[in-house]
């Protein structure tokens, strides 16, 4: 079987069962590809080849013996290096945490192991999930496979890069202000920020307690649903965990969108923060595509994007300051410049600002909930610009806040990012589908219908031509 590295998690399960491919063959193929391309992309902070091969052999033995641990048996899943894997360092891509060895698996990693998945390396990120691409850290920043000079998005940069490069079929990301959906968008893959509380945060280093989400990233909506089935569930040890029963998140993937009511939040990208014209055009086309598929698309008004994002930033600044204040006081020079600038902001907010933000949060969430009573899902922008260059600090500072993701960290609604276009510069453009609280089934249904009707998810970055010419072992152990 050729091109094993592009197989989806769902396809792998079938291929394993039919004995068309084995977990060892897959892992060896992925390692070969990583050796060839990782030096140009920096997706990994740490990858232990022997450990992943040993797990692949064990999975192969079990599958051949007729044992099936779960839906991800023998499927490699990359882990953002802010999530604990027992016995390994959780560096958070920072000098400060280089020696931070995890004593236990995060709840999400335990769930992946129980489903048979192979935790496959620690993936790079923006420092503590808040900085930006930085060259003053112990590890280099991940690069965008579509154009290595451009930003892969963050903070789950390694997750987006690894998926788009064909290093892995699945990865975990975290999302406090859009950190799953930004790299999913910039790298042309799929990322889901689930409803707040659906996926446990235990064993994940906090950024902002009331905004933090953990979720799956993949190359298809089906794989995203498959991973969410494994990750979701109540965890009594996470105080924010929701005790809500859930079933099969992929239940409606084949249902289509005929009759589905879609609210197009046009004012986000047309009036509030005008988007790059190519982003606007791609969103318009996405809305038309939903109409062609039989959805009932209409414009819908939410509170202004700047207000939603502004309130979200108060929480981000205040809560992340409470986590980082001791280090910022004692060793500010150990942070990258961009992280230091972002994390110190909370020192300049008062208690009144935080309570005011809490009051506004209730009002804004009520407004989004009210809008979602009239429609089934929202369609809106993700990033408002195609990815800029990785080394262009001014452009990074200008474009990073131009996004429509953080509103749904503030409110907690589920939000799916998926590719909906390609800029003239050859960089992915992405849209978001947002649903009611705990209605991931409908969000994924809409995403799957869009994916079936378009071919964006089949596009691949132009890496193949360079892979053979530049083959040398990756700088990972």
């Amino acid at each position: 079987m050729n091109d094993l590295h592009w197989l989806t998690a769902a396809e792998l399960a079938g291929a394993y069962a039919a004995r068309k491919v084995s977990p060892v063959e897959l892992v060896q193929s992925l390692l070969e590809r990583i050796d060839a391309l990782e030096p140009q992309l920096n997706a990994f902070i740490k990858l232990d080849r022997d450990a992943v091969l040993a797990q692949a052999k064990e999975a192969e033995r079990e599958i051949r013996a007729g044992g099936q641990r779960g839906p991800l048996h023998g499927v490699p899943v990359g882990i953002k290096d802010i999530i604990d894997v027992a016995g390994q360092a959780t560096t958070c891509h920072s000098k400060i945490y280089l020696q931070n060895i995890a004593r236990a698996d995060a709840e999400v990693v335990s769930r992946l192991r129980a489903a048979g998945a192979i935790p496959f390396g620690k993936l790079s990120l923006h420092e503590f999930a808040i900085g930006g691409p930085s060259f003053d850290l112990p590890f280099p920043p991940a690069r965008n496979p579509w154009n290595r000079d451009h930003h892969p998005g963050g903070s789950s940069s390694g997750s987006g890069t690894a998926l788009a490069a064909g290093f892995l079929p699945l990865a975990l990301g975290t999302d406090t202000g859009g950190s799953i959906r930004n790299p999913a968008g910039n790298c042309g893959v799929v990322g889901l920020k689930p409803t707040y509380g659906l996926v446990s945060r235990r064993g994940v280093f906090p950024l902002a307690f009331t905004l933090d989400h953990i979720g799956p990233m993949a190359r298809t909506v089906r794989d995203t649903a498959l991973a969410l089935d494994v990750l979701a569930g109540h965890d009594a040890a996470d105080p924010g965990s929701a005790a809500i029963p859930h079933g099969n998140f992929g239940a409606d993937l084949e249902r289509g969108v005929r009759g589905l009511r879609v609210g197009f939040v046009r004012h986000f990208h047309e009036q509030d923060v005008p988007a790059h014209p190519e982003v606007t055009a791609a969103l318009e086309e996405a809305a038309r595509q939903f109409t062609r598929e039989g959805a009932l698309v209409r414009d819908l008004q939410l509170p202004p994007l700047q207000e939603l994002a502004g309130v979200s930033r108060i929480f981000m600044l205040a809560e992340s300051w409470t986590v980082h204040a001791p280090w910022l006081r004692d060793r500010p020079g150990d942070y990258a410049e961009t992280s230091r600038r972002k994390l110190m902001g909370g020192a300049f907010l008062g208690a009144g600002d935080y309570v005011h933000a809490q009051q506004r949060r209730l009002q804004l969430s009520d407004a989004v909930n009210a809008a979602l009573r009239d429609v089934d899902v929202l369609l809106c922008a993700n990033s408002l610009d195609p990815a800029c260059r990785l080394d262009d600090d001014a452009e990074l500072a200008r474009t990073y806040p131009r996004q429509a993701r953080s509103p749904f960290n503030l409110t907690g609604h589920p939000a799916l990012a998926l590719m909906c276009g390609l800029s003239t510069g050859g960089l992915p453009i992405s849209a978001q589908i947002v649903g009611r609280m705990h209605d991931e089934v409908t969000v994924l249904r809409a995403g799957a219908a869009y994916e079936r009707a378009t071919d964006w998810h089949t596009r691949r970055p132009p890496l193949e031509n360079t892979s053979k010419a530049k083959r040398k072992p990756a700088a990972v152990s």
Partner: protein
Amino acid sequence: MAVRKTSAFAPDVDTLARAAGLDKALKQFPEDVALAAQSAASARSAAGELDQVAAEPWPPMQVRK
């Protein structure tokens, strides 16, 4: 009725930074401290006004079971 006013008094960034224990950062990275203060001010001004003085903050107080 808008109930949140912006004060005309702009507190000194250095004073606030020292009160927060950021003396070392202030000495080594004064520009970063100034930018952080600016970022907080910009988030505060973007957060919008309340239309009810008695709006309940979220989450409301609830007793532990």
